[in-house]
């Protein structure tokens, strides 16, 4: 047997193994990239830098919303060592059962990923816990911010934020589970500017997940961009005053600066403290608020559709004058056979009819608008008439969605031909079927914002800007184009002035329905009362107004559910609001009026119509 060959075999085996190792190493180290990324994955942790959400100010730079630090206690179950459960429970001020429940929940979620153990520890407990935390490996504190509302008001306008839900995450890739997003109000509308932009910090960690410094000295980190500051058109003093006046009442106040369409106050009563829907308290407060029969979460200013009542007569008068079916001196007898009316002399002019709010007068006006004798059949004639009328009415913003910057706004109802054809059938209705529209009753429905907009439109003598709440964004000069666009109602100035004369008479002339709307001698108030019939209970008290008469600074609509006559309740509320806005105070002689309003309570009188 020749054994010398065998030295080669052994040598070859050694060589082959060496070669296999080199090939394998070349494969692993040079050809395969996955290990590189896995190595990065091991040691790199991306720490999200949450930007502070943008602050919100009112028109006079009063702070409305700011951020407050909140501390979440986080847990990483894998790192949790044996611990003194009772001592930790004492420290966290929770029961042992709760602790175990949360612990099991966290472990179920993941052993290796951190999750929230206790949300929103107060800063006092935070200080205490922080000192002791080194005793409990696997627990650490994560800092976040919470919204705070120093004025406790304007909840419906400001809205609230909450954790994003799954459907939003799927639609908008920016959001990740646990992120906060505006859920309603301005927080919702201006979410993208308020939220800012998230940053990422890359840190190195060792095998025990301990931070070991920044990656490449932070070269690849991105800074969080703080949310933009939003200035609103609100006058928070006026808003608070409105909320005060509306205490123990249901309804709404909307005040607008006519020359710009800026919303000065937007009150929906009853309301709630916006701080109730912040952070951990949401879980407890939201169900309470949503179960409340008075429905405080419901923003009546934008969502409640009411019959406008007699304030609608101003619209009918303008439309009638413009259509030429009446003139400023048209007179109609107050014939109570057709429709009920209060006791007053027959109106001999449009202005007088507005002043005295004569119902039969507007049945006549509306009859002339609908039956313009353009067809022989009264049904056909009514169709033509209603068509022209509805088109004109919609120019006021009624029956259309005002493209304001608050979400969930209703459009209201302006019944047109299609509406009644669906309701009664084509050719089966005529003026007599729909005549209560003439006095703002029947099928017509408007929201308080539209009423205020009507007031602003009259104050402007024939145009309006879409009411809005944005006054400006930090670093941006203009507001959106849609809020700078004039909407004309196509009514001639003289006709509007005729109606304004009547509205002046409402407040100042004998026989006027709203003497309670007077402020004092130097400010001329124009207004129109309404008493909307309510089949469910007491009538709703309605008032629109603007002041001063010339060069108006404020236009307002007040709607108080179940309060009764417009002149008795809505008018004085509007008057106080305007006084507050125009003079920054309430004069001594009007304090009595104020007290009467503050003392009034209409909550038990009926059910709000949604």
């Amino acid at each position, binding site marked *: *047997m020749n*054994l*010398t060959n*065998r*030295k080669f*075999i*052994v*040598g070859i*085996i*050694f*060589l082959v*193994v*060496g070669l*296999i*190792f*080199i090939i*394998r*190493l*070349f494969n*692993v*180290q*040079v050809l*395969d990239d*996955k*290990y*590189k990324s*896995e*190595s*990065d994955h*091991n*040691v790199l942790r991306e720490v999200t830098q949450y930007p502070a959400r943008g602050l919100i100010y009112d028109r006079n730079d009063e702070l409305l919303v700011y951020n407050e630090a909140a501390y979440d206690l986080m847990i990483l179950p894998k790192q949790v060592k044996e611990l003194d459960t009772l001592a930790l429970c004492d420290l966290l001020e929770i029961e042992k059962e709760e602790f175990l429940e949360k612990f099991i929940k966290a*472990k*179920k979620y993941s*052993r290796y990923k951190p999750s929230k153990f206790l949300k929103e520890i107060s800063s006092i407990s935070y200080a205490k816990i922080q000192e002791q935390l080194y005793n409990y490996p696997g627990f650490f504190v994560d800092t976040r911010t919470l919204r705070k509302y120093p004025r406790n008001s304007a909840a419906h306008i400001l809205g609230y934020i909450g954790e994003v839900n799954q459907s939003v995450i799927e639609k908008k890739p920016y959001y990740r589970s646990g992120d906060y997003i505006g859920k309603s109000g301005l927080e919702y509308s201006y979410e993208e500017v308020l939220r800012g932009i998230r940053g990422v910090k890359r840190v*190195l*960690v*060792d*095998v*025990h997940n301990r931070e*070991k410094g920044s990656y490449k000295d932070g070269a690849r980190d991105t800074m969080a961009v703080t949310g933009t500051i939003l200035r609103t058109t609100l006058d928070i003093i006026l808003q608070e005053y409105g909320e005060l006046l509306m205490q123990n009442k249901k309804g709404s106040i909307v005040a607008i600066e006519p020359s710009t369409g800026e919303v000065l106050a937007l009150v929906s009563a009853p309301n709630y403290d916006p701080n109730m829907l912040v952070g951990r308290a949401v879980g407890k407060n939201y169900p309470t608020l949503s179960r409340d029969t008075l429905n405080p979460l419901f923003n009546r200013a934008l969502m409640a559709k009411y019959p406008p009542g007699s304030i609608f007569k101003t619209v009918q008068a303008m439309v009638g004058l413009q259509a030429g079916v009446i003139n400023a001196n048209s007179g109609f007898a107050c014939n109570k056979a057709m429709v009920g009316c209060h006791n007053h002399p027959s109106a001999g002019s449009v202005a007088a009819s507005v002043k005295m709010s004569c119902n039969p007068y507007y049945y006549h006006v509306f009859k002339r608008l609908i039956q313009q004798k353009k067809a022989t059949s009264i049904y056909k004639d009514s169709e033509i008439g209603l068509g022209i009328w509805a088109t004109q009415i919609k120019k006021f913003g009624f029956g259309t969605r005002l493209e304001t910057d608050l979400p969930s706004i209703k459009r209201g109802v302006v019944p047109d031909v299609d509406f009644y054809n669906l309701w009664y059938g084509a050719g089966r209705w005529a003026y007599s079927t729909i005549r209560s529209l003439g006095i703002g009753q029947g099928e017509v429905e408007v929201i308080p914002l539209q009423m205020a907009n009507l007031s602003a439109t009259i104050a402007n003598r024939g145009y309006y800007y879409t009411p809005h709440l944005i006054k400006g964004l930090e670093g941006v000069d203009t507001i959106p184009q849609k809020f700078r666009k004039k909407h004309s109602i196509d009514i001639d100035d003289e006709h509007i002035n005729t109606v304004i004369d009547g509205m002046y008479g409402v407040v100042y002339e004998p026989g006027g329905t709203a003497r309670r709307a007077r402020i004092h001698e130097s400010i001329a108030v124009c207004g129109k009362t309404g008493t909307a019939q309510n089949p469910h209970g007491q009538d709703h008290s309605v008032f629109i107004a603007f002041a001063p008469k010339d060069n108006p600074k404020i236009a307002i609509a007040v709607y108080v559910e179940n309060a009764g006559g417009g002149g008795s309740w809505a008018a004085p509320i509007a008057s106080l609001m305007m006084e507050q806005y125009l003079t920054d105070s309430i004069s001594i002689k009007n304090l009595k009026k104020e007290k009467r309003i503050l003392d009034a309570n209409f909550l038990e009188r009926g059910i709000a119509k949604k």
Partner: protein
Amino acid sequence: MRSYKNILGKVDWLVIVPYLILVFVGWINIYAAVYNEEHHSIFDITQRYGKQLMWIVLALVIAFIILLVDSQFYTSFAIPIYGVVLIALIGVLLFGVETNGARSWFKLGSFKLQPSEFAKFATSLALAKYLSALNINMKDIKTKVMAAVIIGLPAVLILLQNDTGSTLVYAAFIFVLYREGLSGNILLFGILAILVFVLTLIFGPVTIILTAIFAYIVIYGLMKYDVKITFIAVLVFSGLAYVFLHFELTLNVLYYSIVGCLFSLVVYLLTRKEMRDKSIHYLGVAIFVLTCFYIFSIDFTFNKVLKEHQRTRITVLLGEEDKLIEQIEALKIERDVDGISKEEKQIIRDDIGGKRFSLRELRQGNGWNIKQSLIAIGSGGFTGKGFLDGTQTKFNFVPEQSTDFIFCTIGEEWGFLGTFFLVCIYIALFLRILFLAERQRSIFSRVYGYAVASILFFHFLINIGMTIGLAPVIGIPLPFISYGGSSLWSFTILLFIFIKLDSERLLVLR
């Protein structure tokens, strides 16, 4: 008296230089592996790198002393040295201290010594002594038994210390015996048996038997110059393979019936009358039947004979562990290891083909270690992350970084350039030792030289193989590089005795 110059002049520097390079590479990589900013001096003897420097200096002193001693000493005292080491191995069983589950250390104050490390060169000396005696022939059964006893005694004693890794090193002596005349079939069968074992665990017995039959028929056809049979076999098997892969058939009945048919076919072919030399074919049939038994017994061995941790090591090696962990996660078992019921365990087991495993071992993470080790080496890329810049190393993702997994640090910080260089140095060293062994005039020196090369090679094979996922996790050091005095000294003694023998090869005739 020979002068120092004379000694150093005759030693083989082509062995000593790689040795010095490896020792130096080891030292600086231990520094990188356990680098501590508070003790940034590489000479700080409170740290492992400082200590390793001490071990290196001592190792060089030992090496020098070995070179000073007359080579006659090693041949004369081979058996007594072997005896002393055996006594030490027994002693450590009685008086040793346990570390990492193995009772293999003598403790003298703060100093620890591992006799099993020194058993390697002692066994090599003893084997060399025995095989260099007159009238020794590897073909004699007596010689084989004696050689097996010499190798087996320390191996068994070390196994009793519960140090499986060090025991397996003694398998390396098969190369020595092969060189000295042991039948090559044993080496071949050994390699084949390991191959079949692993393949069976990966692909299951049926696939392997099918493959074996296929190989058998093709070889038979080729040897008989019967193109037709070869062709038909290739056709049938590629067709079958296609059908199975395409339809993802796993129907056992079908499998077994096909195996049965093919089995009968093979038996028929082998026992045909026309066949001339029948006895060879009966042998063929016998071998084939035994192979089948062997293949089917692997499952049994794996599940019934091996210990749990051994099974798990093999499972990890076969890359099945990720599947296991996924299964466990999928079952949402978030309880402790022991909290998993037998039923749940059975479900997981069924899903990975009925193999048994130890969850505890899995959780302790051999697989995790291998994964991190591969990530460390793989993320080094071509040029490495740079000295002291290995994140896997620095942030302790790799276990045992200064000892068994030191290769990871090299791979991560020095990249493919570093690992390529290292593998080349090792292979060059091994081949040089083989070359030197072959030029010896005495059988003693040759056997000893082969033993040195084989032992170093086996460590190299298992240690690097483990870190790059080609060998199971067996904790044995990388020669000259891993941290530790005992292993460094034992490898130094092992190597330098051979250098000494080589330097005096012309002086003595043994």
